[in-house]
């Protein structure tokens, strides 16, 4: 780690531990998203980690975004989700695909934390099968008229800016999709929150509806019909943050388990002395070390400007499963106490609930497995894109 990365890690860790962690258990119970979190993130500069300074960010390298994600999810996944959608899926997508003028207009205020952004791809009838999406945008003079709805969108009810994917040609599957920058203030926009989720309960997840929204033509990101490619490259960045967050969740699960295994005694000794308990911890560490290396590899490739769809997807697939298993084993080590959560209980059941959804969003386990199988067989190859994520230039 470079000195900046070390300072960043210390800073975000201390910030999250003192400013955010104390409220999480009760927010989780109440299913409440605390909007002041966004102000705090903005104030710390967390909403523009790897966005260059000329676009309002801090200009740190891409691995720094992983460090932030990891430290935040060490506390709770809901905090990291903000980084995933705002920094990863949306802002880094704009950095890659938007025109210079668009970056100044939309990316800059996002990176400065003045506008909160998210990513609207999934719909009630289109998740893994992106080409099936039904939201459509019809050309009309200087506008596209946007109609349809989105589902399972993180920060749907709190974000200001939305990167929305819509069909501009219903006859064309994935090649008929175009990306648009949509704003909450636009007439015809509405949103709502989904309650009673298993995990990420202190995070906001929702749906949104577009009712004849007039989206100016200059709000098109990339070219007509380029939306599918844009969505996939946004996922290269979103998945990177999901992977790093999952690593944080796995480490938090391990640390909680180690602490408890020192405290709890059965049969006259600390339960950590029992080899079967040690095995669970050894497996966690194996997963953590593996995931960490995959994440750093993907981050290094991003820094160098090397295409990393395959490596990032692998990191996401491995890390989210490591988190899920680590949280599960951490519950096991806590025995009955493992399922006692809330402000007065233990955090591991919350980690377990949080870890679950990460194996569904941004490409489910199955989609990851299919991708890696296709790469292995040579059926899937990443062709150069019209615009790549810029390599990191140290300032």
């Amino acid at each position, binding site marked *: 780690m470079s*000195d*900046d990365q*070390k*300072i*960043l890690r*210390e*800073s*975000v860790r*201390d*910030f999250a531990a003192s400013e955010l962690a104390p409220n999480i258990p009760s927010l989780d119970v109440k299913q409440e998203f605390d909007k002041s979190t966004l102000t705090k993130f903005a*104030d*710390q*500069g*967390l909403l*523009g*980690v790897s966005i260059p*300074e000329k676009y309002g960010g*801090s*200009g*740190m390298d891409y691995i720094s975004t992983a460090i932030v994600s990891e430290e935040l999810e060490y506390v709770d996944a809901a905090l990291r989700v903000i980084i995933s959608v705002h920094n990863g899926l949306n802002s880094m997508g704009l950095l890659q695909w938007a025109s210079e003028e668009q970056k100044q207009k939309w990316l800059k205020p996002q990176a400065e934390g003045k506008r909160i952004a998210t990513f609207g791809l999934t719909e009630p009838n289109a998740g893994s099968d992106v080409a099936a999406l039904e939201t459509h945008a019809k050309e009309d003079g200087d506008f596209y008229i946007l109609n349809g709805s989105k589902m399972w969108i993180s920060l749907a009810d709190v974000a200001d800016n939305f990167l929305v994917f819509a069909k501009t040609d219903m006859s064309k599957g994935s090649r008929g999709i175009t990306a648009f920058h949509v704003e909450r203030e636009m007439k015809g926009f509405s949103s709502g929150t989904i309650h009673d989720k298993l995990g990420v309960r202190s995070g906001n997840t929702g749906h949104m509806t577009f009712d004849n929204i007039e989206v100016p033509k200059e709000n098109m990101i990339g070219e007509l019909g380029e939306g599918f490619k844009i969505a996939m490259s946004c996922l290269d960045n979103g998945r990177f943050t999901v992977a790093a967050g999952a690593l944080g969740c796995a480490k938090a699960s391990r640390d909680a388990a180690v602490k408890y295994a020192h405290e709890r005694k059965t049969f006259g000794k600390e339960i950590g002395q029992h080899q079967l308990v040690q095995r669970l911890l050894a497996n966690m560490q194996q997963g953590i070390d593996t995931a960490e290396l995959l994440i750093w590899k993907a981050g290094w490739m991003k820094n160098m400007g090397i295409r990393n769809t395959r490596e990032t997807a692998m990191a996401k697939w491995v890390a989210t499963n490591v988190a899920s298993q680590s949280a599960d084993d951490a519950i096991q080590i806590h025995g009955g106490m493992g399922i006692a959560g809330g402000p007065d209980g233990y955090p591991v059941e919350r980690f377990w609930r949080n870890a679950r959804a990460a194996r569904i969003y941004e490409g489910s386990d199955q989609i990851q497995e299919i991708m890696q199988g296709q790469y292995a067989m040579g059926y899937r190859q990443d062709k150069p894109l019209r615009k790549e994520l810029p390599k990191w230039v140290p*300032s």
Partner: protein
Amino acid sequence: MKVVTLLKVTPDTETKFQINSAGTDIAEDSSIEYIIGPYDEYGVEAAIQIKEKLGGEVISVTIGSGNEEKSIRKAMAMGVDSGILINNADLKSSDPLSIAKAIKEVVEPLNADIIICGKLATDTSDSFIGPALAALMNIPVISEISSLEVTEEGVVATRDAAGRKERFESKFPVILTADKGLNEPRYPKLPMIMKAKKKPLDKKDTAGTEIRKNVTQVKAEFPATKSAGKKITGTPDELVSELVTGLTTKEKIL
């Protein structure tokens, strides 16, 4: 206002040490995370707050042995303007008086209004440098302060002494040593972390002063692990008699 903050870099207080193979000191291996000494960090924060209130500049001064730059950059990311680092392992491990003299050599020409450092460094726990520097420079010192008010005229500081709060006033220049409670050090903001890289850090390998080492650390060992105590229960009378019996016959303390 010119404020100098003395910044010692120490192993993270949560580090699990190993003893070196010679058994003389802790092993300086890569498992140690180095941080700004926690009390010095209160000093850094106080210095930055003074600058924010009254303007001026904050300069950090460090005697180090190679593990310091990250922590100095962190202090710069918090708001320190520039730093001086004397990188000299012999000096760092010399007698505290040699270190204080070296610091005097570096600090005196800066003509600071306020010099602030931690009440102690968590690795050596000497509580020596601040007061010693004051003696060497022949200026006042207020030690172990837990609150501070600075105006153009001077400082008002309080110290939490046993069972009372003491209040001191001084004109400039003055040395202050920071105790817990003085403030809550800020977390560096991301843009500041990047700006800190470009702030001037003057690195030297000597302060030009004599290095003396009259005291040598010959051994370091972990404290013996305590065996579990005995818990006694009963009525107050039973407790007293069992305690007295235990202390006289078993522990042979009474």
